[in-house]
């Protein structure tokens, strides 16, 4: 355990400032989400003051929304919902995409063809329109949304997993394992997966950003996370008309979205840089 801490410290010390900044933001947001009920001064859906107070108000620093809920509290609760759901969706997309991608790469032939064409079809339809279509048909529950986005996003994960697994699959040590008579899952688990964790982990970070933005976009369009649940995307939408009156309220959740996206990308960049061997 001590060695692990030591190692982490060593890695962190060599991290560039951008990555450190990214880590700091991510950790802050995670903590805010986890401890929301203790950190937030008011409840998530509690109406506490006059509606549409501007940013910089004495009592409600980030102002209040159009029905008088505290923006700051809702940002903190929003972290929990938005980030939590985005994480769940990305994890789901990854399990699905990675398993199918590995299968396609190792099995080849018709398995690869069938899965590949299916993915092509899904990718051919603009994802936002596709998601809107499905969600309009099935109704806008959080579960539906998570599933739809996970399936749509798993196509990208499928592609990158298949490509990197193919590169490893032609190596002689995989051939040696096949000739030994090893089963499919053994080869995937022991020979291929350990060698593609780096690109997959980097992809996870990027995917997370996209999913997160996608949910925000859906929420903004009214098909994502439904009121009164606090969520950064829908908060932008609900208070967007305040911009017309010169109030900055909608920019606060918008900034949070931007900040988290940029931070995750900083960390992913650093991770890619470390694992790709492009050190000098």
């Amino acid at each position, binding site marked *: 355990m001590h060695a692990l801490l030591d190692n982490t410290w060593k890695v962190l010390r060599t991290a560039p400032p951008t990555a450190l900044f990214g880590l700091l933001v991510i950790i802050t947001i995670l903590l805010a989400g986890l401890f929301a009920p203790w950190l937030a001064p008011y409840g998530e859906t509690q109406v506490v003051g006059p509606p549409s107070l501007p940013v910089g108000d004495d009592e409600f620093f980030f102002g209040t929304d159009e029905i008088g809920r505290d923006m700051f509290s809702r940002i903190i609760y929003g972290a929990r919902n938005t980030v939590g759901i985005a994480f769940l969706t990305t994890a789901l997309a990854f399990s699905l995409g990675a398993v199918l991608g590995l299968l396609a790469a190792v099995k080849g032939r018709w398995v690869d063809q069938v899965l590949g064409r299916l993915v092509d079809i899904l990718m051919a339809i603009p994802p936002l329109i596709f998601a809107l279509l499905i969600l309009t048909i099935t109704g806008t529950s959080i579960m539906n949304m998570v599933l739809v986005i996970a399936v749509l996003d798993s196509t990208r994960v499928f592609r990158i997993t298949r490509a990197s697994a193919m590169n490893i699959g032609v190596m002689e040590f995989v051939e040696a394992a096949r000739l030994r*008579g090893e089963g499919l899952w053994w080869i995937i688990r022991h020979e291929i997966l350990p*060698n593609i964790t780096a690109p997959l982990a980097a992809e996870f970070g990027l995917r997370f950003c996209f999913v997160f933005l996608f949910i925000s976009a859906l929420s903004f369009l009214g098909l994502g996370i439904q009121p009164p649940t606090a969520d950064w995307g829908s908060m932008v939408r609900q208070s967007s008309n305040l911009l017309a009156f010169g109030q900055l309220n909608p920019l606060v959740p918008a900034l949070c979205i931007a900040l988290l996206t940029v931070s995750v990308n900083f960390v992913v960049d650093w991770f890619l840089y470390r694992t790709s061997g492009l050190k000098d």
Partner: protein
Amino acid sequence: MTAATDGHASEASEGDVLLRMRGLRIEGRADEEWLEIVHGIDLELHRGEVLGLIGESGAGKSTIGLAALGYARDGCRISGGEIWFDGVDLARISEGKRRALRGRRIAYVAQSAAAAFNPAHRLIDQCVEAPVRHGLLDREQAEREAIDLFRKLQLPNPETIGQRFPHQVSGGQLQRVMVAMAMAGRPDLIVFDEPTTALDVTTQIEVMAAVKKVVEAHGTAAIYVTHDLAVVAQMADRIIVLRNGHVVEQGDTRGILENPQEDYTRALVRVRELRKERMEADDTDVPVLEVANVTAAYGKDPVLVDVSMTVPKQRTVAVVGESGSGKSTTARVITGLLPPQKGSIRFHGNTLPSAYFKRTKDQLRQIQMIYQSPDTALNPKHSVRDVIGRPLTFYLGLRGRKREERVRELLSLIELDPDQFIDRRATELSGGQKQRVCIARALAADPQLVICDEVTSALDQLVGEEILRLLLRLQKEFGLSYLFITHDLATVRAIADHVVVMQHGEVVDSGTRDEIFTPPHHEYTELLLSSVPEMDPDWLDRLLAERGEEFRDRGI
């Protein structure tokens, strides 16, 4: 050649020196630290002289070769010493001035021509670039010069070959085009970095002959970097033997070959003298492996046509041929990776299913494979214990302490200290050590037949020879049969009992080692045999004289 024929090059006059390195030190960056890899080299090169730099990988020979251009690879830096080229110190002048010299007065020929050419441009465009960019010639003159050089380098269709793209010519031709590219600016010095290492023996000769001729004709000085003493013996007037960034020995070519002073040089000179004792013929047993009339194809292109061979018990059968002869494909058919269209594979008299996934565990266990490149044959994420232990668990059901003991036993067998190596990963081993681990992995399955696919060609000569010794010892101890695929006839001579010669997917000649190596030879066998460089500076000249004009017109 001038300097060597004069006798001692070092006594030539001072003004004759083209390149002089003094106390050259080069550092490489590893794990956030600078480590010295070249430790103070002194070197002198006269106009028109060819200097051979020889040593195993990691000796610093390529690094020193590049330093002659005032260049250090990414992650390396010239940390000390002087590099005087015709009165300027390349280590001191600005990058701009160095660039003005490169391609015009100093040029470089890389090992892999295929990787050194830009695949998107025609050959001629890449050949004229340097002289045109340096303002030496205009485009038309440069093209004429290039075509002239193509002709001198005996490229087929010199007028039109420049219009082709790099992938449209063969490896040997591409290597010669790169020589033409380097010569285009009429440089005073060319650095050849292993220009023939990636080529077949017969192609190697074409390139060597062409290079030698054109370098002599233009009076260009050259540094010839290689790991093969027999090759450098043909090309160089003087040789410097390097090891771990130090000069081991230097002298003129004949002196080094005939009277080496240092142990290391002696080992290099003797490297091809390993011989296996002759085995008496015994045809009574059923052969371990029979390949009967196999025809196989990738898609529609036939790669093997009616190939037959047998591997007797406890014998080594060597399959030789140039790249594209189908020797590795034969191995793929035997292992079941490429099911044949016609013919069968019999193991101890029983026909094996043609696809590997239809074979039983025991059938798979009995045929093991060792690969050419140990770097890709070992999973970089696995430890030596995992690599060797897996077949033990998989085939023999060994677990826990028993397995651990057997892994250690196998490590001792391949002459690696178990305590030191069992926990290492493949990335923490040298090339020779990796190949040993691959051998142990094959051995762990307790096989009858081991297919060795070019197992020494990715290794340094001395290391390769140790691997061959190890394989011979293991054969004796465990009664293994080997199917040994190689393009290197020296290896064949060293270890084979039987030899099968392949060309264009067919078996053209076969027999016992003595039959193959004693005349009269089959025509193609003769060509292969005579193309293997010998440790004799006159070998190439003699061979070319023998082959005469017939050879010079060859090579399409």
